[in-house]
């Protein structure tokens, strides 16, 4: 913390105040992380994400066959509900600024809006990494319990699968943020994020002419191999192309929109 004494003398062109520095991206990211959890809505979303992971593992302990009670089998299913909820957190982080009108304060304090957007992206990436760590921890707890109660309790987890899981969650959350940035409206962004890929899957499946394109553009299909432990070069290629459409384009257009939009 810096303390400054205000030069109160009047002069024609005041020099920038001594000791006043631009807040670093690290600081802005810390602020955005704080904002994810300091409202009731955000806090409950985080709690629900944690609880969901625990509930999934508990259900498996109760109902899955003993031989299937392994670390991998606890870990992978716990990613799915989190993969739906985290993007909602990402969307809220962007759109709440507009629906709650805090953009007026946020962008008055940091007029370089791209820095705020960058910090928000960094904050949700950190939250995503944390969620994967929690999934791992809960899966580990499940495996320990399974070992005691007669489940398989096997500990193998391929490095490739771990990497794929991280990519899977990051893609989900960044897609959410992209829709949030592009639409700047909470319900619209959430509904679009949840519906559009599904609609696209249905249309892609029904219309023969689109089936080839769907193999490259339907994230439901291109992301599926991420939950296994091996992916071919072509599968990565398809994933990359679909992400260009569903993540990179919304993020880029959304950034432009956010920079230009009038804050009122």
């Amino acid at each position, binding site marked *: 913390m810096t303390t400054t004494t205000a030069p109160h003398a009047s002069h024609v062109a*005041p*020099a920038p105040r001594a000791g006043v520095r631009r807040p670093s991206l690290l600081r802005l990211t810390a602020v955005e992380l704080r904002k994810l959890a300091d409202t009731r*809505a955000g806090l409950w979303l985080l709690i629900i994400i944690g609880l969901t992971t625990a509930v999934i593992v508990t259900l498996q302990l109760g109902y899955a066959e003993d031989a299937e009670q392994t670390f991998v089998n606890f870990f992978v299913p716990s990613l799915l509900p989190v993969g739906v909820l985290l993007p909602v957190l990402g969307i809220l982080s962007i759109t*709440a600024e507009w629906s709650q009108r805090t*953009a007026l304060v946020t962008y008055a*304090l*940091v*007029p370089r809006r791209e820095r705020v957007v960058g910090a928000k992206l960094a904050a949700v990436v950190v939250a995503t990494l944390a969620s994967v760590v929690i999934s791992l921890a809960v899966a580990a707890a499940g495996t320990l319990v399974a070992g005691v109660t007669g489940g398989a309790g096997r500990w193998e987890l391929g490095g490739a699968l771990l990497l794929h899981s991280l990519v899977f969650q990051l893609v989900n959350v960044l897609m959410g943020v992209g829709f949030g940035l592009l639409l700047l409206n909470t319900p619209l962004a959430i509904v679009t994020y949840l519906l559009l890929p599904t609609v696209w899957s249905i249309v892609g499946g029904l219309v023969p002419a689109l089936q080839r394109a769907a193999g490259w553009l339907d994230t439901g299909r291109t992301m599926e191999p991420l939950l296994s432990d091996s992916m071919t070069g072509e599968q990565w290629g398809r994933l990359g192309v679909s992400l260009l459409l569903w993540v990179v384009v919304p993020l880029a257009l959304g950034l432009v929109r956010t920079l230009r939009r*009038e804050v009122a």
Partner: protein
Amino acid sequence: MISVENLSKRYGRHQAVDDVSFRCEPGTVTGFLGPNGAGKSTTLRMICGLTPPTTGRATAAGRPYRDLENPGREIGVLLDASAQHAGRTGREALGVAAHTMGLGRREVAARLELVGLDSAAAKRRVRAYSLGMRQRLGLALALLGDPRVLILDEPANGLDPEGIFWMRGLLRDFADRGGTVLLSSHLLREVEAVADRLVVIGGGRVVAQGDKTELLAGNGTLVRARDAEALRHALETAGLAARDTADGLLVPAETGTVGQAAADAGVALTELRPAGGGLEQLFLTLTAESTKEAGK
């Protein structure tokens, strides 16, 4: 210091702000006056880099707002007290801003105390705040970074009379210590009590600006006596022209001169006061016009 040069904003065919220029100097409170919809808020948002101007430019603390490294430490801004996350506590709303600016908890506590939000109020969520409490929180936020410039949009809205009195003292003190204050209002009386200078805007254009006393005075003295004929004669003798109005005789001279003329002639006055300035009339006309527009 704030400098606004030929600022204009056009929305489609609507010219919201039209070639507005003015300056706010350190040590002064500038009242930015105009009826609702005159373009006050749009101008303030343009100064703060939140609305891109169509043409023209504005600088605050010597530079365009968007070029300031850490604006909260130089310029305190309160544009809308309702623009706070309803689910955040008052203390947390300040905490987030302090965190961004690189300030600590001590500053947050000090500003909460300054604006009269006690710890019970600070712990409550903004959703439960009255408009007056939100204004106080917004002022705390504006003052948080110990700025040299304050830009406030209708800060008296929702404050009770005691709160308005308190805020006037706060702004006066801020300016007396060398700060620059730009304060908007749609009520002439509200800024009259605290402003040194006035900028009056109507239909997006500056219609009057200058020293408050000059703008408000100007139009002579109103005088009345029980014996109107004797008064008229006394003024004539003193070489003062007088005109009949519904409020008494209007004399284009200082109150002192008129009073002396009456005293010299031994006429007892029932009333002697500065005539309402041209500004008041102008402002009433502007307000009436905007009401008419709104009624269309």
